[in-house]
């Protein structure tokens, strides 16, 4: 007797879901390509990136000095410049052409030029000038050279001002050089480190891209292994949309819940990156993020004909996606069109949310817009995935029936042929 009660249906559905989940899990380990993108890349890639950026700041940028003044002040300037952490005086040159050659040979990143009338002008009470020449091919070295020169100049200027004014007490001197005291407080990412600025974004993006690649590869493999190049095999387990979608999504979610924990907790810990996000907040952010990415990937994976094409479609988007999060070029200055395009991808909100939780110590209330956006994406892409799978199932069935019809027709034809012959 066949049971058609609702309970029975649900139980069957759950069983099928578990079957599909188990099958997908197995292919994660056995399929070499999926293994690479689901396990190896998320484990190894963040380590590599963190290692690259782990020095955080640029130290001892080599600079050439052209000192034609040879005065006490110029030498004091050079000493202070060399002593500061960000720069070092690597070469002394006789003229600016010689220094330029050193820049061309990449041994120095900038030049300090003291003209021969430098100390004359100072002693005559005129404004003296120091030429600062920066190689602009690297912003970080330009910043290091210019800021160091500026702070050394400010320091020496203060000394000159004190000497030139008639002060009686130390307090007077302080007031002469700085009537208004300004305190600069770097609030978040206090070292101005490059790794701390870029790694959180890279980590979240790695999660998304590896998931997309893995899901796409799995779908491509499923198609290629299928006799009729269909995404969904003809099997009694693959009859309902929800059991397929949930079964697969559950597998991806389980693998990447682990990976997400590793990427957001372990990797920053290994390399001592700033992490201010608590466990519950991370769960609240990463759950909708992973769901959104999984359903996004599953909806798109129906487009994949051949497994290798996934790489061609996904890999290159990493860099534009990273830029769209506003991690490099500030979000407020992004052209409107790219703001809209950015809102299609889960990584945009995932990275923004993660940065604010992890690097700025924000709480869930601070990232409310991002959380809402991620849940909306998760829901939209879930329905899109269901629609795509529904279409695929119907398509598969239609094809199967067509083939059956064709076989029947052939059989009938063969029969009639035989009859005619007889």
């Amino acid at each position: 007797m066949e049971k058609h009660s609702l309970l029975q249906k649900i139980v069957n559905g759950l069983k099928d879901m578990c079957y599909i989940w188990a099958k997908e899990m197995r292919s994660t380990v056995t399929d070499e390509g999926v293994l690479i993108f689901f396990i190896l890349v998320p484990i190894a890639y963040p380590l590599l990136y963190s290692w690259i950026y782990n020095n955080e700041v640029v130290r001892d940028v080599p600079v050439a000095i052209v000192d034609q003044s040879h005065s006490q002040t110029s030498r004091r300037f050079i000493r202070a410049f060399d002593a500061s952490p960000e720069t070092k005086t690597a070469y002394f040159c006789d003229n600016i052409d010689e220094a330029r050659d050193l820049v061309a040979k990449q041994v120095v990143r900038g030049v300090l030029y003291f003209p021969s009338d430098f100390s004359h002008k100072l002693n005559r009470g005129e404004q003296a000038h120091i030429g600062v020449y920066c190689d602009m091919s690297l912003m970080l070295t330009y910043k290091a050279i210019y800021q160091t020169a500026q702070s050394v100049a400010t320091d020496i200027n203060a000394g000159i001002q004190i000497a030139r004014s008639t002060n009686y007490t130390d307090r007077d001197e302080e007031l002469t050089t700085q009537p208004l005291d300004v305190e600069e407080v770097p609030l978040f990412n206090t070292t101005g480190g490059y790794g701390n600025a870029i790694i959180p974004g890279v980590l979240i993006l790695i999660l998304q891209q590896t998931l997309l690649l893995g899901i796409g590869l799995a779908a491509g493999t499923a198609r290629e292994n299928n006799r009729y190049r269909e995404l969904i095999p003809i099997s009694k387990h693959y009859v309902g949309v929800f059991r397929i979608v949930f079964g697969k999504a559950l597998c991806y979610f389980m693998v990447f819940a682990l990976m997400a924990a590793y990427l957001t907790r372990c990797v920053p810990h290994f390399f001592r990156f700033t992490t201010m996000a608590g466990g519950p907040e991370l769960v609240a952010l990463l759950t909708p993020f992973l769901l959104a990415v999984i359903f996004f990937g599953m909806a798109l994976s129906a487009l994949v004909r051949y497994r290798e094409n996934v790489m061609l479609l996904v890999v290159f988007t990493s860099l534009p996606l990273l830029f769209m999060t506003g991690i490099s070029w500030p979000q407020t200055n992004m052209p409107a069109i790219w703001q809209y395009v950015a809102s299609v991808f889960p990584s945009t909100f995932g990275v923004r949310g993660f940065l604010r939780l992890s690097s700025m110590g924000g709480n869930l209330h601070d990232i409310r817009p991002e959380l809402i956006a991620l849940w909306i994406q998760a829901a939209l892409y879930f329905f899109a995935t269901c629609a795509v799978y529904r279409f695929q199932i119907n398509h598969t069935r239609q094809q199967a029936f067509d083939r059956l019809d064709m076989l029947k027709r052939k059989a009938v034809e063969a029969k009639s042929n035989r009859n005619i012959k007889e």
Partner: protein
Amino acid sequence: MHILRQIYRIALRECGIIIKNPIYWFCMVLFPIFIIWFFTSMMQAGVPTDMPVGVVDLDNTTTTRAMIRRLDAFQTTKVAATYDNVNQARKAIQENKIYAFLYIPRGTTTGLATASQPKISFYYSNVTLVAGSMLYRDLKTVAALGSAAVGQQKLAAVGKTGNEIRTFLQPIALDLHMIGNPWANYNVYLTTAMVPGLLMLFVFLMTPYSIGTELKFKRSREWMAMADNRTWVALLGKLLPQLMLFLTIFYAFEFYIYYVLEFPHPGGIFPILLLGLLAVTSAQGFGIFAFGLMPSLRMSMSVCSLWAMISFSTSGATYPAFAMSPFLEGVAQLFPLRHYYMIYQIGIFNGFPLADAWFNIAALVCFSLLPLFTLWNIKRSMLLYVYIP
């Protein structure tokens, strides 16, 4: 002559494959154009302007308001909101509303008048590095101007001339020369390294893809037969049309940025053309080499894509290579993009003689010649292997 005809025939066959398979169109024409458009339009402004900054002004006098107006007048800064206290402003940073804020405590103006050295504070976030450092610069200037304004009034009161005042306030002035990119234009700085990297990524991927699909679609023997089983002839014929196509895109990109957007290129046309050619051939060379090492479509493409993505970091175009660990600085030489970037900045951006980049040019030539080492393996795989999905 016979060989030339063979190459020509294989090239024709390859053209047919390219035209028929839409993935080639996407990866060789559409995506690259999209990438070029994306980066050049994203950073069209060159320098981020009017970034939102908050103000916590507890003093609220004409002096402090003048200071805020001055801050607002800077190109980079826009005073977007005022807050009642520091906590609210800090919250606003965490909510992504502002990047920094200026805190002026009560009594600042009185303090200035009574010479008791009042203190104002500027809080900025370095989480977005560009925003943080640019706003920091504006703050520095405003603070210096604020101090200077006080000194200026004092000195003017005792009858000093403008020249004397300037000299007193700043006895040593810095003449900053930002060579090549005096606007600190981020489009010039980033697009010139990121877009070539992505174009090379496409070459990286398409090369093993096009070779590997011969195996996958079981055309490899037919392909080798057309070249009388001479691998180099087969590869030359196959990759020539791709080279032409990629080169066209690359040169179009270079023409667009150097001659339409007018990015600085004091090095002139020759290094531009040379670098475009070397970039494509070295990426192709690496792609063939990778496929020769691992004659499996999937593995070679995985390796190529991972290599290409890492190269954005190891190129040292954003975070300098010499600041990385010394081991990585050495490893960076294994990435064609590193050499691309070096040749670009030495030969094109700074206009130094190409001889200064001889090492990098030699390296790219070596990358182009890498396939020589794995030709035998490609031949073996094309004739013996069958595709395993």
